[in-house]
């Protein structure tokens, strides 16, 4: 079974500063995908960044980057130069390489303070 754990229910950060959201997961799979999704109050899940487990290089998307530690089964999200629009719930998710379902964590509510 796959499990995803987000140990920070709530976090806050000053505008323009950097924040890191934590995620750990448990799986016996060797090849898989990891994702961070953003969910604003509208409830639509928006893909922030994804990482293929077979790639050693950490994924980056503009202000968003990950620290993927496969051996430790850790997948944290770093948001640089935080903006007010980054305020949302953030979900870490796992999917098997050949799979059809996400396994989501319980989310971290991020508030960017002006």
């Amino acid at each position: 079974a796959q499990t995803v754990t987000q140990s920070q229910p709530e976090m806050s950060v000053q505008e323009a500063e950097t924040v890191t959201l934590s995620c750990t997961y448990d799986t016996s799979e060797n090849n898989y995908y990891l994702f961070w999704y953003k969910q604003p109050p509208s409830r639509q899940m928006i893909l922030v960044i994804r990482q293929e487990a077979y790639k050693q290089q950490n994924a980056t998307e503009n202000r968003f980057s990950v620290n993927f530690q496969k051996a430790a089964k850790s997948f944290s999200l770093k948001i640089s130069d935080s903006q007010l629009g980054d305020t949302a719930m953030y979900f870490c998710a796992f999917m098997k390489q050949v799979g059809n379902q996400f396994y989501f964590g319980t989310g971290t509510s991020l508030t960017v303070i002006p």
Partner: protein
Amino acid sequence: GAGVSQSPRYKVAKRGQDVALRCDPISGHVSLFWYQQALGQGPEFLTYFQNEAQLDKSGLPSDRFFAERPEGSVSTLKIQRTQQEDSAVYLCASSLGRTGFSGNTIYFGEGSWLTVV
């Protein structure tokens, strides 16, 4: 369409009532998923379609839940004899790929908020 569209956006049902939630995926998308998101939780998988075939329904919580996609495009999630624990946001997602995630982005709708009173 431009994105995944779900209707109704909000539904209040009396306990015991049947409800139907609709999902219009992005045109041409082969894969379609339903998720249930309870308050304060992450989404949980309900079922997966590849075209009109329901390949995985392992997440459906009981036989009161039924999903269909008869023509391989629009999907309906039906909940019979609703109970209070069915109150949640029901999210639909679609992907171009045939086998769920195969490098293709999965797009989510805004969800249908169901409240059972």
